């Protein structure tokens, strides 16, 4: 008994420390007072103000565009890359996987600064450079999601399709594609999450003209803390949460064998 309740308390504490800050943020976003400690009653005022602010809405649309476009293009390029890597010999595969993993582990701020240095040499910072940067850091996530699916769908199923008279293109679309589709989708969703989440890389590659939600929150917070930003952060958290739920649902749905 003692042991069991100790276990429960321990678990409760962990979740408390994990989620309490976010809960506080969400609660404060509905607080009818600018105070960080006093509860002034429930209000949707901060959300109203949020949606009536043109600069915030612009940042919102920019974020949606960057997130979707970078995830789409990264999914396309990443899937093609995974197909290429899968066709390589073992040695080449190891080299390529190492090369794709390094940006994944690299500190975001280093990636951001180095991309900025590269971009300013050739072009002006803006929407394009943010998009290119996001595509770049998203590609490894797609590769890491698609490659295991390719490995699972053994090469012999592709050969079997050819053997039964399929052209290489038909064999790919009927045999390989359906088998890797779950990986492609989770790669796409993960890219969206990463892109939505990103601050450092965006901050260094965006230049002065544009803002995404995360850089917007940062600049606004520097001017002084306004409760609209709590509301904005809450929205951002919810979007990320929804993407995550999709991602997990997709994974478990695929694992269950269908009878």
């Amino acid at each position, binding site marked *: 008994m003692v042991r069991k309740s100790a276990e429960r308390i321990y678990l409760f504490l962990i979740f408390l420390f994990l989620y309490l800050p976010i809960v506080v943020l969400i609660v404060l976003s509905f607080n009818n007072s600018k105070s960080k400690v006093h509860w002034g009653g429930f209000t949707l005022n901060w959300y109203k103000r949020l949606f009536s602010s043109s600069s915030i809405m612009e940042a919102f649309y920019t974020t949606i565009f960057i997130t979707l476009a970078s995830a789409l293009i990264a999914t396309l390029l990443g899937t093609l890359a995974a197909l290429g890597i899968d066709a390589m010999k073992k040695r080449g595969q190891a080299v390529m996987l190492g090369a794709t993993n390094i940006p994944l582990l690299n500190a975001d701020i280093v990636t951001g600064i180095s991309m900025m240095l590269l971009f300013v040499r050739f072009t002006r910072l803006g929407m394009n450079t943010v998009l290119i940067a996001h595509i770049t850091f998203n590609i490894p996530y797609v590769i890491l999601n698609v490659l295991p699916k390719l490995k699972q*769908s053994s090469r012999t199923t592709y*050969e079997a399709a*050819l*053997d*039964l*008279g399929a052209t290489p293109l038909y064999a790919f679309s009927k*045999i390989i594609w359906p088998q890797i589709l779950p990986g492609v989708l989770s790669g796409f969703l993960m890219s969206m999450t990463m892109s939505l989440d990103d601050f450092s890389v965006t901050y260094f590659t965006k230049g002065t003209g544009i803002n995404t939600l995360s850089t917007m929150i940062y600049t606004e917070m520097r001017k002084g803390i306004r409760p609209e930003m709590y509301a904005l952060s809450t929205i951002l958290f919810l979007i990320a949460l929804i993407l995550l739920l999709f991602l997990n649902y997709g994974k478990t749905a695929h694992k269950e064998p269908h*009878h």
Partner: protein
Amino acid sequence: MSKRLIDLQHITKSFDGQMVLDDLNLYIRENEFLTLLGPSGCGKTTTLRIIGGFETPDEGTVIFDGKDITKLAPNERQLNTVFQKYALFPHMSIAENIAFGLKIRKKSKAYIEDKIKYALKLVNLDGFEKRSINSLSGGQQQRIAIARAIVNEPKVLLLDEPLGALDLKLRQDMQYELIRLKNELGITFVYVTHDQEEALTMSDTIVVMNQGYIQQVGTPQDIYNEPINAFVADFIGESNIINGTMIEDRLVKILDVKFPCVDEGFGTNTPVDVVIRPEDVVLVSPEQGMLEGDVTSLIFKGVHWEIEVLANGYEWLVQTTQMHPVGSHVGILVDPFNIQIMNKPESNDEKAVESDA
């Protein structure tokens, strides 16, 4: 004799500088059950993949039904393959798997449905149309793989160790099923295996391969009773391979004892390898034997006893239904007809596998 359907001429293939096939020549007749038999790495699977079109030979020609198909893509060849790991399409039902090739050939819906029924009946899986691949056992999956291949009515069915992943009992059942299928379909089977028992049971013709070279081509009886070299003798079943000297025609000296035999044409005083199958060694009382020895080991194998007899410095492997306890003194007798004389190996690939003493 039926006509040659597939003709492999001077096929050479290497991977990363490693020679896998060296000037291989082989023909396969129509309606033949031909087995490529050999240890792993002998080139049997590569040969099959060259016939299937999954590998292109570095040199040489593949003739199929009178036409050169060396460069033809797999999807344009009139043959189908049953793969080692079944290679069924996991996201499709059994019916969809079987219909795959027929849909590509734009067959009518009614035709396809008939064919699926027929093929499932042929492999004893009636009524399995709607089931998913994941719900099948290994043996059932292999039957579906066979059904998927044969509905396309190929002239040749290529089988790449199709029973390798199944357990012993199932493997034996499937051997009989394959023979029955071959007879019912009346098409050519090219079968790859490393299992000599499988090869002996099913084949019309066995091609024994080692290290990229064909060692011997013949009927199962030929291969078993008259192996051409030590490798074949050792690979096809257990045998006593003993150094001998061919004194003259029909007389060979083994372990300092002269044995009459039936082989001729090896010259006089020529060193040879002598093969005597364990079941051909007859144990008699010491005074009746051509040589005498002592039983050193005795193992019960069910249908027979496996006995080792040390005689004149050689451990004879003997299979007999009569029990001789360890330590008993016995005589050894061999019928001249059961002594098989072979030339000494001229190259590595003709030698018996070392670890199999």
